């Protein structure tokens, strides 16, 4: 499935855009001018990678500081252990399109731990 994300002009370098798909997808425009799309949810816990810290081809999870390689989806160190899915990006007529991956996503275990710790949830 191909989904239009946003206009290239509306996504400056160093910025990210979150697609409210299910599961959500994050599109990044790196400082070097590359465009990448990955699953937006950290594989460790429910956090949006579009809110994370973009540096080169890596985005750091805003919560627990695992970094994901935008090119491969791989995580550099725990707490995240599984890669995020990567999606192909196509730019047509100045619009960024995301070609959704057919692979199964690696979503976090539905925040079971957070609920346990939260107690009152």
């Amino acid at each position, binding site marked *: 499935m191909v989904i239009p994300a946003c206009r290239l002009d509306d996504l400056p370098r160093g910025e990210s855009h979150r697609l409210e798909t299910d599961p959500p997808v994050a599109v990044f425009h790196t400082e070097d001018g590359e465009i990448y799309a990955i699953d937006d949810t950290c594989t460790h816990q429910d*956090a*949006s990678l579009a*809110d*994370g*810290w973009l540096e080169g081809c890596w985005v750091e999870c*805003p*919560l*627990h*500081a695992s970094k994901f390689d935008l090119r491969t989806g791989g995580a550099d*160190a*725990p*707490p995240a*252990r599984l890669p995020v899915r990567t999606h192909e990006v196509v730019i047509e007529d100045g619009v960024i399109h995301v070609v959704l991956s057919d692979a199964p996503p690696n979503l976090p275990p539905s925040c*079971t*731990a*957070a*609920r*346990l*710790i*939260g*107690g*009152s*949830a």
Partner: protein
Amino acid sequence: MKTVAIVGASLAGLSAARSLRVQGYDGRLLVIGDESHRPYDRPPLSKEFLTGAVSEAELALETDGEDLGAEWILGARAVGLGTRDRTVRLADDREVRADGVVIATGATARTLPGSDGLAGVHVVRTLDDARALRDDLALGGRLMVVGGGFVGAEVASTARGMGLDVTLVVAGPTPLSGVLGPDMAAAVSLLHGDHGVRLLCGTGVRGVTGGPADGSGTDRGRVTAVLLDDGRSIPADIVVAGIGATPCTGWLEGSGVALDNGVRCGTDGTTSVPGVVAVGDCAAWYDPALTDHRRIEHWTGAKERPATAVAALLSGGTAPFAPPRPPYFWSDQYGVRIQFAGHAAQADSVTVEDGDPADRSFLAVYRRAGHPVAVLGVDRTKVFTRWRRQLATAAAQAGVA
């Protein structure tokens, strides 16, 4: 450089080993650890590991199939360093000679007076500590947590979620007052009361008392109460001390490596001895923002700073380096995400700029003479990241200037 010995096999030591290989070092690499375990992740030990949501296998820091070409010497405590020929002496009298040494021996948890040999009294530093606490928490009962830092607050939160009766006693005005400053610490500490944890502030702990041993061995029996400075005795079935840690640098005494509450380091991890660098909880790097040496006992520092220290080691201290990002830490309590970056102690003002502490969701910015020096986010992830980045940019510019 043909042989590098890394003394310490936790996050900082592993990060140093990875950085050496990434930076092209292809010589012999030794990683020495006093625990028998391969590198594991510590933050879950005060949280999800205690509930069972995270297993021991999931704590592993090495990825599947990762091969650093290192020789692992585990269960071996370093007891001395000969700085002339950079020889690490181990407790079993073995000696390891190296061209470069990375000190990453971490810190050891402080214990409560009178707690030696008393069952039911815990610290949370190592995997073995956490296993013992996990087994005790599973029994339930009255838990007394001593200490106003992260470990104490997180254990209190976790145990409460598991249904224990929890009291948290802290010497300061509130938990986390040192790192967050008094006003924001007070706001964050409301979480404890929200979730039914009793908070006793402004009182120190004199020690613990235990029941009689059952005569079956040399043990002193089990803890029964915690004695407070104000004379009160609070009954407890389980006690956790989260009262800080001291750097593991005793083995370096007299070696010539300068020590001062940790290994005294430059802004790049270099020590007073050529060919020896230090990283992680035991290392007090010079922080230009504070114009002082400071140990940063955070996960992020242990992960990031070894790259700088290793570059200095391989280059003989001539590699250019960027100043480290401002210290960053997170804490998960009662399902709330607490994030902090920078130094609160530098601030002369704190303002809530987003959200409301009454909703337990807010962002606060700490400033000194109008310039941001620290930021606190409570369930405010996106805007926190933006502020954290801004702080880092400002710090980098100050470092260049």
